[in-house]
Structure formats: structure tokens, C-alpha cells
């Protein structure tokens, strides 16, 4: 199973929308996400920054949250997306 990460901010409205979708996805499928908050945890923030080259080109050349990352392949997707798009992305990661 791929190591999937969701980087999120505690006060980010898009993240607030996406977190329950991740919960639902985990109930429906074997997919699992590690949820890492980045504005109140510097260790998580540093980890996200370490993936800058993989994340930025897909996220308006910035480090934006929410970001969904496959830590193994470094594939990334970011922003508030429909449940089906999230599901497709996560299932594609293998």
C-alpha cells in the first residue's frame, strides 16, 4: 500500500472540507492517509517543505494546503476536490 500523506492547516477551510472526505474514503476503501498539520507543528512543516520540488509544480508553484502526497512516488495533488477525484487519485496510487 502506498504511503499517502495529507498535509493540512488547522484553520484552512478547504482542509476542513476535505478531512471528512478522507475519513469516508478510508471507511470505503483500504486507502490510508497520514494526516499532518503544518502550521502548528514545525516538524510536519519541515517535512512538507522537504517535498517542495514535488509539490510546488502541481500547486501553483507554492506549498499549498490541502496537499495530498504519495510519499513513495512523490506524486501530488492539492486543493479542495470532489470526493470522486480524491478517490480516483488515491486508488491510482496503488
Amino acid at each position: 500500500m502506498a504511503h499517502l500523506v495529507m498535509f493540512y492547516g488547522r484553520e484552512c477551510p478547504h482542509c476542513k472540507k476535505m478531512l471528512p472526505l478522507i475519513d469516508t474514503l478510508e471507511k470505503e476503501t483500504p486507502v490510508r492517509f497520514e494526516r499532518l498539520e503544518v502550521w502548528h507543528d514545525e516538524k510536519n512543516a519541515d517535512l512538507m517543505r522537504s517535498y517542495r520540488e514535488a509539490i510546488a509544480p502541481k500547486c501553483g508553484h507554492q506549498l499549498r494546503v490541502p496537499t495530498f502526497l504519495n510519499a513513495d512516488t512523490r506524486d501530488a495533488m492539492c486543493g479542495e476536490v470532489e470526493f470522486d477525484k480524491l478517490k480516483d487519485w488515491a486508488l491510482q496510487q496503488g
Partner: protein
Amino acid sequence: MKKRYWRCFVCNDVHYGIAPPELCPTCKVLHAYVEITAEEARKILGGGPETTMATEDFRASIERFTVGNEFQVNPAADKVSLLLTGIFENEKNHGFKFCPCRLRTKDWEEDLKLICPCNFPIHETYKGVKDGECWCGLFVRRK
């Protein structure tokens, strides 16, 4: 081009930019700016009156900022209030009113672009988008 510091020789307004303003916005004198050091600029600004801004003051300030612009503060009050909490948490923990929906890179110039309000009209979530929003949704295009 690098930004530098300038001081109005009449009223001591301080300007940070690549060139001095032609007209001083405060005293309206022409060609009044002389270059100064960062240290002098800090001393002048630091000696001014202490000002504080509570969340409600900031909210009022961004409301005033949108007047005359093609965007407005998002009418969705719960979204705005979550964002304002984040913006103030970030100021307390990281020194500036950083955007709650992006992360600092720790590069000074890059991170200045994350101070709220940021230059969101150039972002793909706003530019040319009918119901455009800033990345976080704090500002939305006026209907």
C-alpha cells in the same frame, strides 16, 4: 531590482521600494524623498505610536480595503472567522499574518508573498475566473 528605503525630508514618511515616490502622499511635496538605511527606517518606524490590531480591527481593515475593488470579503461568515483565527495564530507563532492555506518556505522574499491579503488577483483561482476566489476563499469576486 532591489527595494531600498526612502524618507520624506519634510514630514518623515518612510517608503520601501525600488524608487522614491514622486509626490509625498502625506505632505504632498514633490521630489521630497532621500535614501536612508534600513536601520534609520527601523528607528523612524519603531519610534512611532504603538498600534495593535485585534481580529475585528483587521476584519474592518480588509472590508475598507475591498471598497472600490472588484472583490469583497466572502459573505460566508464561518469561513471568514476560521481564516481570521488562522491568520492571527500565524502572526502570534510565526511573526506575520501568514496565509492559513499555504506554508512558509522560509525564503524571506517568497514568504512576504504569503502575508494576508496577498496579491491573489494574479492567482489562477481568481484571474479570469467568473466566481473567482483567493486561494483560501477569504476574498471573492463581487457579484
